[in-house]
C-alpha cells in the first residue's frame, strides 16, 4: 500500500525520462577528456589499471579465445590501407567504459545488476550479476568483460596475490565486470571530503590511468563542478552531455565544428561521459 501511495505521490517525477532531464539529481558526474593529440599509445594506463583494479592475467591460450580482462585497452588502427607504408603512423585510442548517461547496457539487465549511480556512473553490482551477458551484447563499445573462468585460481600464484588491492574485490567466474572510473578512489575522496565537510576538490584524486599517463592525455574530473579542468575542456571544445533543458546534446550542436571534441559513436545517443579530442597530424606531401 505504502508503495502504491509512493507511486501516486511521485508519479510525475517517476515518469521523467532523459528527454525531460531524467528523474535523477546527480551529486557528481564523473567524466573524462582524452586528448588523442597527446596520447602516444604507450599502454601505461592499461597496466596501471591492472595494478589498481585486480584485473586477472589470463595467459596466452585464454587470451587467444578473447577471454582477456583489460578494462582499459589501447586500440591501434591503421588509417592508410592504400599506402605502401603507414606514413602518418598509427591511430591510438584508449577505450574504456564510457559511463554513458543513457547506457544501453543498463535497461537490459534482467536483475538490475548494472544501474546508474548518483555519480552518473554505470555501476556493476558483482554480487547481483547472474551472468546473462545481455549488457555486453548491448554495449556498442564492447568494453564489458566477462569472467569466463575462476581466474583467481590461476592469475595470482602466491605471493602475487599480496599485491591485490584490498579496496575492491576479486571477481569469480560468471560475473560481468568493467571499468569503474576507479570507484574505490572516488569513494575514498568523497569520504575524506565528508570528514572535512567540504566538496571534493578537482584534482585531489584521479583515476589510475590518468595518474599514470606520461603525456597527460587522460583528464579526469567532475562534470558537475564548473571549475574542474574536465568541465572546462568540455566547454572549450563545445561538447556537453545535455542542453539547458537537460536534454541530451549532440555533436551537431557544436557551434565551431573545427574544435576537436567528440564522443565515440555519439550517433547512437548513448551520451558517453568520455570526450575525445581528435588526433592531429601534419598534412605533408
Amino acid at each position, binding site marked *: 500500500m505504502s508503495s502504491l501511495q*509512493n*507511486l501516486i505521490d511521485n*508519479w510525475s517525477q517517476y515518469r521523467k525520462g*532523459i528527454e525531460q532531464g531524467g528523474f535523477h539529481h546527480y551529486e557528481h558526474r564523473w567524466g573524462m577528456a582524452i586528448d588523442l593529440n597527446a596520447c602516444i599509445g604507450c599502454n601505461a594506463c592499461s597496466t596501471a589499471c591492472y595494478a589498481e583494479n585486480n584485473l586477472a592475467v589470463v595467459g596466452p591460450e585464454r587470451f587467444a579465445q578473447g577471454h582477456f580482462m583489460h578494462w582499459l585497452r589501447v586500440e591501434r588502427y591503421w588509417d592508410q590501407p592504400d599506402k605502401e607504408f603507414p606514413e602518418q603512423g598509427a591511430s591510438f585510442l584508449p577505450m574504456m567504459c564510457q559511463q554513458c*548517461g*543513457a*547506457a544501453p547496457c*543498463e535497461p537490459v539487465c534482467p536483475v538490475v545488476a548494472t544501474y*546508474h549511480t548518483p555519480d552518473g556512473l554505470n555501476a556493476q553490482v558483482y554480487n547481483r550479476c547472474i551472468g546473462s551477458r545481455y549488457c555486453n551484447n548491448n554495449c556498442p563499445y564492447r568494453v564489458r568483460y566477462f569472467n569466463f573462468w575462476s581466474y583467481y585460481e590461476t592469475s595470482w600464484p602466491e605471493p602475487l596475490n599480496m599485491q591485490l588491492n584490498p579496496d575492491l574485490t576479486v571477481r569469480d567466474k560468471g560475473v560481468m565486470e568493467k571499468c569503474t572510473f576507479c570507484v574505490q578512489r572516488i569513494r575514498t575522496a568523497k569520504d575524506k571530503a565528508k570528514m572535512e565537510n567540504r566538496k571534493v576538490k578537482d584534482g585531489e584524486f584521479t583515476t589510475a590511468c590518468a595518474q599514470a599517463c606520461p603525456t597527460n592525455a587522460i583528464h579526469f574530473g567532475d562534470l558537475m563542478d564548473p571549475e574542474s579542468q574536465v568541465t572546462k575542456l568540455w566547454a572549450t571544445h563545445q561538447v556537453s552531455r545535455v542542453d539547458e533543458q537537460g536534454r541530451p546534446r549532440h555533436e551537431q550542436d557544436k557551434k565551431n565544428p573545427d574544435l576537436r571534441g567528440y564522443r565515440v559513436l555519439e550517433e547512437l545517443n548513448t551520451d558517453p561521459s568520455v570526450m575525445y579530442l581528435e588526433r592531429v597530424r601534419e598534412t605533408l606531401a
Partner: protein
Amino acid sequence: MKKSHRLLGLFSNFEEATKAIYDIRANKVSGVSVKDVTLISPIEHPEVEEALGDRGVHVQFFTLFGGLFGLIGSWVWISAAQATFLVQPQGGKPVVTLVTNFVLNYEMMILGGVLFTLIGLLVGARLPSRPGTLYSEKISLDQIGILLEVNEPNLAPLKSLFHQHNVVEIREEIIR
C-alpha cells in the same frame, strides 16, 4: 419436493434418444419435465442438446474478470514495485516505464484470463465430482444416456417411453 428414484436410459441410436427427449418435453409422461433430464453423451452433441432447450453457461464472466484482474493487477503491481525499487532510471529511461510494463500487463491479462476460465470450467461443470453409481462405461464408448430423477408413480410410464425408443439398457436406483 424430493424425488425417490434415479433412472438412466442408455440409447445407442441418437435419433431415438433425441425423440425420447422431445416426448418428455411434450409431457408425454406426466410429472416428468424436460428440466429434470440430464443428457450423458460420449461426444459433444449440440443437435441432441437442442432438445433439452436453452440451458445457460457462465464461464465467459469468469474469463472477463480474470482478464481484467490480470491487466490492472499486474499494472499496479509492477509500477508500484518499480517506484519502490529505486535503482536509478536506467539508460536514461523513467523509473516507471509504462511502455515496457504494458508488454507484461498484456501477458498477465492472458494468464489471468486463462486461469479464471479454468476455474469457471471447474465451477460450471461441477468438477471434480464422481460419475455416479448409474454411470456406465458404454457412455464413454458410444451410447447416449438420459438421466432423470422421478417419483415412484412416474417410473413405469417413463420406462415404457424409453422402450418405445428402443432403449438398449435401463439402470435405476433409489435415492435415499
